[in-house]
């Protein structure tokens, strides 16, 4: 450290600081800053633009264009139990789609969350470093498989070779070839890597001292994992759960293929259902004329979907911040 009495620089050095050549570097710096800012702006603008389009098409009409909720009341949208935009007698009740979405996401969560968490605990607490090094890339491959492959897998393998033999041949249920269960199963598999890797991060960030303290009290590995590490990492784990559910709700291709296209209000996992996302696929691919209520219902659905996933993500951030134990 320089003492207070010695000058930091000679007068000549100080003069150099104020002179010429600095500006080039400063300009460059400003340019870089500007480019980086623009790149950051892209995603912000995109988000805002999407929200703008969703709102103008579904809530407030712009110009001659009427919005969806000006044609169909919010009350009907939320309480009507039929969703038949392509029929002569049109009904716009989101409940069948919402129900289909939640059914698939629920099955996915029932499968994916516990398995993902268990594999996180295994990787973080039980596995040797070598096992961890080998298993983690495999999980990442699982995360990298295109979702349409999962959908196909559900349709040609999960339903005929797993679900039907057990639930139809053995237990006597009537299993449709398109069904919520197969979609839920593959979406559940899909979210395992996400839950596992985020939860593992949360588990591993628990201070080593806590683990040692647990062992020093005569704990088994399971005691330490279940009673010390899990509770200490609960905020990160819950956050990973919420993001995974949000992902399951937003999942599209796999459920479009596996769950089918019938907007039925049912909780029967063996029946074909339509989710909000697969309805959007369906209409986008079809010949629905622009401007019709059926076309505009896309935006209302998209807005609902957006609000649901946004709420989940916000909640997950809130839990992360609010419930994180602060370790020095």
């Amino acid at each position, binding site marked *: 450290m320089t003492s207070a009495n010695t000058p930091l620089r000679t007068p000549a050095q100080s003069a150099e600081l104020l002179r010429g050549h600095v500006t080039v570097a400063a300009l460059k710096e400003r340019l870089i800053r500007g480019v980086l800012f623009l790149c950051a702006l892209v995603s912000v603008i995109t988000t805002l633009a999407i929200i703008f389009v969703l709102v103008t098409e579904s809530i407030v009409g712009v110009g001659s264009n009427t919005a969806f909720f000006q044609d169909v009341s919010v009350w009907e949208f939320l309480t009507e139990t039929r969703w038949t935009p392509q029929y002569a007698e049109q009904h716009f009740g989101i409940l069948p789609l919402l129900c289909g979405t939640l059914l698939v996401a629920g099955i996915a969560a029932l499968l994916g969350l516990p398995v993902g968490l268990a594999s996180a605990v295994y990787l973080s607490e039980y596995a040797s470093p070598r096992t961890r090094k080998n298993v983690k890339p495999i999980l990442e491959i699982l995360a990298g498989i295109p979702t349409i492959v999962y959908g196909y897998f559900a349709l040609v393998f999960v339903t005929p070779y797993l679900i039907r033999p057990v639930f139809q041949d053995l237990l006597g249920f009537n299993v449709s070839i398109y069904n919520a269960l197969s979609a839920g199963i593959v979406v559940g598999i899909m979210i395992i890597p996400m839950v596992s890797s985020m939860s593992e991060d949360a588990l591993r960030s628990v201070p080593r001292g806590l683990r040692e303290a647990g062992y020093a009290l005569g704990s*088994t590995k399971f005691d330490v994992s279940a009673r010390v590490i899990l509770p200490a990492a609960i905020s990160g784990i819950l956050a990973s759960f919420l993001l995974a559910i949000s992902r399951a709700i937003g999942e599209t291709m796999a459920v479009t293929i596996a769950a089918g296209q019938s907007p039925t209000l049912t909780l029967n996992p063996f029946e074909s259902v339509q989710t909000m996302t697969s309805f959007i696929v369906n209409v986008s691919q079809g010949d629905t004329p622009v401007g019709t209520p059926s076309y505009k219902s896309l935006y209302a659905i998209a807005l609902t979907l957006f609000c649901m996933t946004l709420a989940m993500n916000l909640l997950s951030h809130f839990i992360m911040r609010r419930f994180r134990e602060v370790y020095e």
Partner: protein
Amino acid sequence: MSMSFAEIVEQRQGGSVAVSAGVIPAIKLSTKNLSFFYGETQALFEVTIDIPARNVTALIGPSGCGKSTFLRTLNRMNDIIEGTRHTGTVWLEGADIHDKRVDVVALRKRVGMVFQKSTPFPKSIFDNIAYGPRIAGEKRKKVLAEIVESCLKRAALWDEVSNRLKESALSLSGGQQQRLCIARSLATDPEVLLMDEPASALDPASTARIEDLIFELKENYTIVIVTHNMQQAARVSDSTGFFFQGQLIEMGSTLNVFRRPKEQATEDYITGRFG
């Protein structure tokens, strides 16, 4: 400041030095030719030591001398570190703790440990203390409450927390957290307490409380404390071992080690010539 370590020992213990010097205490823990390796690095060299029961044994030495590593071999805490191994033997009351039939979980219940940095679990004060009994299968609320109260009392923390047992242990001050950790160790009903610089992160007042506590606890427990603070060793311990470069240089009664060290290295260290 002018008081020598030997004077500290004499002043504090008064007559009790003579008493404990006159009786040959039972040996609680002992090691023979214990060497320890982190991968290729050898951290302990042929350590042979006898640790008397119901006494405070201080392990002193400069940073990196192996005293903490040694302490952690006594409850096999190093087992959880990958790539470590040992040679030689550690006995707890004559039983080899590395014997295949020894359940390391049961061993750690008998040989508890308190760490340098306090490690309260992110649970309530009550649940922290009740942790040990609970994993041992105790479910009765009344029994747990009794254990919590008696352990907090023994750790001299009861008066400060008795009316807020449900609050998070993380809300306690640093010194209170460390006493909580001691209370939590006591709740598993150990015979030996290993303490790894338990007061090094604490202010002087909290340190004094911990030291008083150690002094009281030795009535019922065998205590091994690692410290880099020689006044502390002089204040609380009955015997002292000096570690240097992974070797146990000297071990003897605290008074003798500080007053008449046998080895030059010990003398250099306690007179402040290095370390």
